[in-house]
């Protein structure tokens, strides 16, 4: 698939994480992140331990480090927020070097930074090892409402198609001398967005007719159901189990 839209996180590979069935990975991911979020604010050591778990899982995927790091840019706005937090929050003050900051703000900023990084790493580990087709099968297997799964399936199927269409429109604009520099270029880009909507909608109508002519009745058949062995479940839920142990240790101590 061409175009930058189709080029999502998935990286082909044959690591232990790649081999786990998608629904096991998805459940494992949700359980792990939920437990990490449930850690109390001042449990910094426990949070660092969960970060280590996430780093190990990412390492197990054998995806190039550069690829993983380039995906962490989605975090940027919240790194900024976490840095600003100690300065804007209220509560008792504490002094670090030349600056005086809010202690709860500092703790919350640190907690946010580590939690967000942990969960983004885990989500990257999921996304790099799961193809969009497998994600659709996993959601189907987990009984997410059929219509929602279908919308998602059509979306990931046409992501690359519409993405390269948008790219071609961009090339067409620029080869006619268009350079988006200021607010004055907005009408052109907005008109392109309008044209892209009409083209996407009409493509949707054509896809629907093509599917009707092939016997589509509003449901997608499950041709190749996902299966998981107890061992695979064990592997998939291991990060979650480790996070649970840390949480229990924090609550007990």
């Amino acid at each position, binding site marked *: 698939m061409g175009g930058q839209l189709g080029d999502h996180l998935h990286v082909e590979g044959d690591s232990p994480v790649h081999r786990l069935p998608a629904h096991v990975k998805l459940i494992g991911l949700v359980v792990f992140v939920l437990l990490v979020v449930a850690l109390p604010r001042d449990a910094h050591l426990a949070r660092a331990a969960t970060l280590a778990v996430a780093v190990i899982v990412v390492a197990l995927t054998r995806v190039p480090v550069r690829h993983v790091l380039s995906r962490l840019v989605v975090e940027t706005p919240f790194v900024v927020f976490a840095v600003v*937090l100690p300065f804007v929050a209220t509560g008792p003050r504490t002094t670090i070097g030349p600056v005086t900051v809010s202690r709860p703000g500092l703790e919350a900023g640190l907690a946010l930074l580590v939690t967000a990084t942990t969960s983004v790493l885990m989500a990257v580990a999921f996304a790099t090892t799961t193809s969009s087709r497998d994600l659709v099968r996993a959601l189907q297997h987990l009984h997410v409402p059929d219509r929602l799964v279908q919308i998602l399936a059509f979306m990931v199927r046409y992501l690359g198609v519409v993405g390269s269409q948008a790219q071609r429109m961009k090339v067409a604009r620029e080869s006619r001398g268009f350079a988006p*520099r200021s607010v004055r270029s907005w009408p052109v880009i907005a008109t392109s967005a309008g044209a892209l909507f009409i083209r996407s909608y009409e493509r949707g109508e054509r896809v629907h007719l093509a599917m009707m002519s092939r016997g589509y009745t509003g449901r997608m058949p499950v041709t190749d159901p996902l299966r998981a062995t107890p061992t695979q479940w064990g592997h998939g839920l291991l990060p979650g189990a480790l996070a649970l142990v840390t949480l229990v240790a924090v609550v007990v101590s």
Partner: protein
Amino acid sequence: MCNKHVPVRKGSDMHVPDGFLDAPTSVATAAVAVAGVGLALSRARRELDDRTAPLAGLVAVFVFAAQMLNFPVGAGTSGHLLGGTLAAVLVGPWTATLCLTVVLAVQALLFADGGITALGTNITLMALVGVWAGWLVFVGLRRVARSAGPKVVPALAGVAALVSVPTAALAFTALYAVGGRAPIPLGELTAAMVGWHTVIGIGEGVITLLAVGSIIATRPDLVHGARGLLSARPLQIRTEVPA
């Protein structure tokens, strides 16, 4: 070809990450999201009948692609569309809710953008509040300006889009007041969030206005929000060939 390489997804300022709100708030907003999306699933049938899945899927791709169009503001910075109100005006609010939900799910699960446990929060803020605040403002204004015909639809959509962005920011502030993890003075947080998102909302409003305007000019039948207004146009039979 002189297109500079753009990163696949830049961090967007509206996606709540994991750990931003506490676990009970995340679970509660997830419940709200499930209820809202469940209702939208049953109602979207009326807007798109059995074509729902393929069409809503393609509209979701459009929203995703439109969010990646960069609108230069000047001085090297640029903004992008959020698209909630635009989608609601184009395909109706129920379908728009489903499209935005799927976009957010794909962003969280395939692009690691937006938290996994915060998916419910993000759906509540953008697919429910973002879409419905815009749609309700649009419907209210349309009722007032019904006599003006379809010409005013782009302007109404623009105003609705402008209002929807700070409304979603306000909803976020309310969630932060309940489940935020750091004590930030609420008055200042509200002022900063609403102020900044009103600026973003102006951009959203202008882009929505221009985009809806261009679609109404070429395919007015596709704009859900203009349906009731278009039928008022009588068929003209021209017997003379205009010079």
